[in-house]
Structures are given as structure tokens and as C-alpha cells.
């Protein structure tokens, strides 16, 4: 059943359009920065963006920071919100269940497909933004900042080039952590992978909420919007002093903790809490989704 769900995921145009859009945002930002040479000053704007003019290889980190707050959760919420409700409104749910596919099994397969989608999206952003960073923003041009803007022709973009997030890293490239210490290539690979894993896991809370709502309603868009509404509330409360008491339990509270992977040494405290809070959301909402879906009448 998992293979069937993965087949459905990859055969759907929506999957690739949404991943394409997620990858396009960092590309657009990179082009603007490359053309104008105006990166936000350190401490302002999206994380890492101030550093990418000096260090194109850090662009994957900057790109992840760009897509994390809105693009990625929206895409994940749409896919997860559609998973049961979409089948219900299309009428295919009843045929799957009558095949028979066990309800628990279907839910698990859907979850695996959603996780796969999140992984695909995060990997795609990392790979394309690495290529963007190297090709548009230039590899390790620390010594040449502010010169030769003519060499940054956007025409040379080749999305998808570059085998992996770190495939072209030269040993000894002078990449520094946020703490100012130099990072070796291996360390950078590890940290980028760590950040990718953390961000993927951060999406699971949203995914679980959307999946739960998807079992409640036959409206895919309703389930997606419902889970996004929950996220927006969480993102607002996270910045609200009056809500300090509940902040540690909000699903987006530790979303930015992956930045700590780029400190030296890595600050594990928030990263661990981030993993833990996502685990709690996943367990609670999946249990609710299962309890609801396994016992409800399928009348669609």
C-alpha cells in the first residue's frame, strides 16, 4: 500500500509544481541579491542571507530559512490535508477501503507519502539552492566582495546542476560557523544534513494536524487551511510576550532551532526540544486521526 501511495504522489503534477515553486523562491531572492549586491545586514532579514554574498556555499542554509516559515508548511499542509479528504471527495476512498485496504494501513501509507513529500521538498531546495549559491553568488569569493558584479550573469543559472548539497565543496574553503570558527567540509556536510533532518521533522507536526483534519472532513482545502490556521496562531503566539506560558508547547516554537547546527559547538538544547515537541504533536494528532478514521462511517 505504501508503494501505491508513493506512486500516486510522484504521478501527481501538483507534487512537482509545488516543489518547483518552493525551489523558485530562493532562486528569485538569489538573483535579486546577485544583481543588486544588497544582502540584508547581519542580524536582519532571513537567517544566513547576510552571509551569502561572501559565501555562496552557505546559500542552502539561507534558502531553507527562506522557505521554512510559509512555503514549506503550506505545501506540506496541502498534501497532508488532501490525503484522506481528497480521496473522500473524489470518491476513491470507498473503493480503496472496499478493496480492502485496512483503514490503519491507509493512514500509515498516507503518512509515509507526506513525509516523503517533505523530504523531497527539503532535498530539492537544498540541491537547487546549492547550485544557485555556487553559480550566481559565486563560490568562496570572500576576498572579492563588491567587485566584478558583471560576472554574475543570471543567464548562467543551471538549476539542478550539482550532484548534492556539498558535491562541489573544495577542501579548505574558508566557511565559518555563526560563532566565527572555521568549518571543515565534512562538518559543513554534517550540519547541513542535520538542518535538513530537523526541518523535515519540523514539518511533521503540521502534517499530523492536517492529516487529522483530513479524516474529519471531506474538504481537502478545509483540512489544509485548518492546519495552516493552527500554525499562524502558533507563529503569532511565539512572538507574543503575554503568551510566554504556553510558548514551549507551540508547534513552531523551535522551528528556527536548526540554525544552532551552524554554531560551534552545536547547541543541542533547542534542537532536542524541537524534535521532542514535534514528536508529541505527531503522536497526539496521529492517534486522534486514527481513532477518528478507524471508527467513522464513510459516506462519501
Amino acid at each position: 500500500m505504501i508503494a501505491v501511495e508513493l506512486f500516486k504522489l510522484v504521478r501527481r503534477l501538483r507534487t512537482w509544481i509545488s516543489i518547483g515553486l518552493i525551489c523558485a523562491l530562493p532562486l528569485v531572492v538569489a538573483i535579486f541579491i546577485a544583481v543588486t549586491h544588497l544582502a540584508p545586514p547581519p542580524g536582519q532579514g532571513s537567517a544566513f542571507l547576510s552571509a551569502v554574498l561572501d559565501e555562496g556555499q552557505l546559500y542552502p542554509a539561507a534558502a531553507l530559512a527562506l522557505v521554512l516559515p510559509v512555503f514549506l508548511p503550506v505545501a506540506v499542509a496541502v498534501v497532508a490535508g488532501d490525503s484522506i479528504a481528497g480521496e473522500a471527495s473524489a470518491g476513491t476512498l470507498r473503493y480503496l477501503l472496499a478493496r480492502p485496504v485496512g483503514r490503519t494501513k491507509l493512514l500509515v501509507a498516507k503518512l509515509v507519502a507526506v513525509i516523503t513529500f517533505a523530504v523531497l521538498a527539503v532535498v530539492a531546495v537544498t540541491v537547487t539552492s546549492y547550485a544557485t549559491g555556487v553559480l550566481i553568488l559565486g563560490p568562496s569569493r570572500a576576498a572579492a566582495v563588491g567587485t566584478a558584479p558583471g560576472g554574475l550573469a543570471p543567464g548562467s543559472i543551471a538549476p539542478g546542476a550539482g550532484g548534492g548539497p556539498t558535491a562541489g565543496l573544495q577542501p579548505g574553503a574558508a566557511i565559518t560557523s555563526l560563532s566565527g570558527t572555521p568549518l571543515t567540509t565534512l562538518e559543513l556536510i554534517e550540519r547541513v544534513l542535520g538542518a535538513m533532518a530537523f526541518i523535515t521533522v519540523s514539518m511533521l507536526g503540521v502534517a499530523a494536524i492536517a492529516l487529522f483534519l483530513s479524516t474529519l472532513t471531506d474538504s481537502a482545502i478545509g483540512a489544509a487551511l485548518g492546519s495552516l490556521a493552527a500554525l499562524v496562531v502558533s507563529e503569532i503566539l511565539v512572538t507574543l510576550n503575554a503568551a510566554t506560558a504556553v510558548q514551549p508547547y507551540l508547534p513552531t516554537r523551535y522551528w528556527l532551532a536548526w540554525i544552532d547546527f551552524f554554531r560551534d559547538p552545536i547547541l543541542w538544547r533547542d534542537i532536542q526540544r524541537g524534535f521532542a515537541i514535534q514528536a508529541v504533536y505527531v503522536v497526539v494528532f496521529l492517534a486522534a486521526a486514527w481513532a477518528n478514521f478507524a471508527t467513522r462511517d464513510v459516506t462519501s
Partner: protein
Amino acid sequence: MITTQDLTKRFGHVEAVRDVSLDVREGDRYGLLGPNGSGKSTLVRMLLGLVYATSGSISILGEPVPRHVGRVLPEIGAVIEEPAAYPHLSGRANLRLLDAAGPGSGGGGRRTRRRRVDEALEQVGLAGIDRRPVRAYSLGMRQRLGLAAALVRRPRLLILDEPTNGLDPRGIRDIRDLLTGLNADGVTVFMSSHLLPEVSALCTRIGVLDSGKLVLQEQLASLQEPTGRVLISTDDPERAVATLDGLVERRDGADLVVRSADPAALNARLVAAGVPVRSLAVQRRSLEEIVLDVTGAGSDQFGVPA
């Protein structure tokens, strides 16, 4: 094959199905009739484990449902209300997907599964189907595809909710022939419909639902026993009436309704009297009369005089 005991389903205050005790036997071509909103679909969904009964019990192929529905469903092919498919995939891809989704991924190797899908498509008249996505299919093609999906696993029992909806006369005829052929090969057919001619042409046994209650369940043949009347059409009705004296119950132009249990004797008598008989037939109750007799107004009518 299918038996239910006092099956009841309530949605909130609405009792969709009330105390239904179905009895579908092996080899039957069973037609479940009833006006719109009489509970046919809810009943079918309960049989398939999609909707849970409020009370009562279901047993299919000797297994309790929904408790062992996972054991029963692989033996069942179903069309549940409209057919549904993934619109962006081809018909063949849809069938493969559904086939792969079931328990044990359908069993058999890749080639077996492919052949099974091709056979099902052939059975429903979609053998020459191309790579067009289902989105581009006509309603009739979708209906045929839905039926193919029900047949892929070569079920022992077919549960079909309105299987001929949206088909043209030729399609209806094709499906009827297909179902009759499958039935002859030992497949039990349970279908719901509100198309009386369909059920009349196909089914051997009927059940009638009205407002959620099963108001009639009987072999069609015994419901349509001769009524003891004969329908006669003649060019000389006056002489026929004179000859038959008192046996004629009704006259409508050249058509007569005559009380008689022996049509052959009646015919001989008319011929002997020199009455030219154009046609002579034993009167049987039509399915329409049978159903209308036992049902009230459907749920899509309001304010109908009782």
C-alpha cells in the same frame, strides 16, 4: 451469501435503515429496489464495512461483518454509487493501482496481474482502451471502468449499487449480458437499482426497501405468477364479448381482459366461434405494479397525498 439480522442504521435522528433482514442466496441475481432515499446505498455501505450499523448483524460468506470484513472483501467486487477513479491516470493505470492496493498486493507475478487487468477491461468492453486519462472518459466509459475494477479480483460475489447508471441502451444490454454470464459461472450478483426494467430483465429475486424497511423479499418468478387473467386483442371485440359472456372483465377498444386460468382453452373457444384473435397473453403483474403496491412516496417528494 448475504444475511442480515434486524439491521438498523441511525444517522442522528434519521433512521436510514430499519430492521432489515436480507437473505441473498448463492447463485442469486438479487435486485434491491426502492425509491430514492429509501436506504439502498446505506445498506450497501454497511455490507462493505464502510458504514457501521447501529444495531443488528451482518454475515457474508459465513463471516461476520464488519468484524471479519477484511476476510470477506477480497471475495467481493463492488461498485458503490458512482464509479470513481484518479482522473489524471489512464483507466489501465487506475485498475493496476487498485489491484495493487489490496491485500497481498494482488498475488501472482507482474505478468499475472497485468493479464488480470487486461481481462477485466475486455470483459466490460474496454479492451482497446488507450492511454487517455480517465478525466477524458464519458460517463458510460467510467461506469464500465468501475465494473472492471470490481471484476479484477474475480470475485464470488458482486455488490453493485446502480451499475447501469449513465449507460446507453447498448451499454445496459452489454452489462446485463456480462452479469448473466458471470452468474452462470457461479458468481452471485447483488445489485441495487431504481430502474425497474433493468431489475426485471436481470434479476431472479428481489427485495424492496421503503423508508429504510424491507417491505418485500421474494423470488421474482413467484411474484409474477399468472393473475388468472388473459389479455386478448381481437378485430371483432363485440363477438368476442358475446362468445365469452361474463368472463370479460374489462374492454378497452380491441383489447380485452378475460378471467381464465387456461389460455389454450380460451383460444380454442374463440377460434371455434370464428373470432379472429390477434394476440393472446397470460397476464402477469409487472414489477412496477409490485413495487408501487408496497412502497410509498420516495424521499424526493413532499406533500404527496397519501
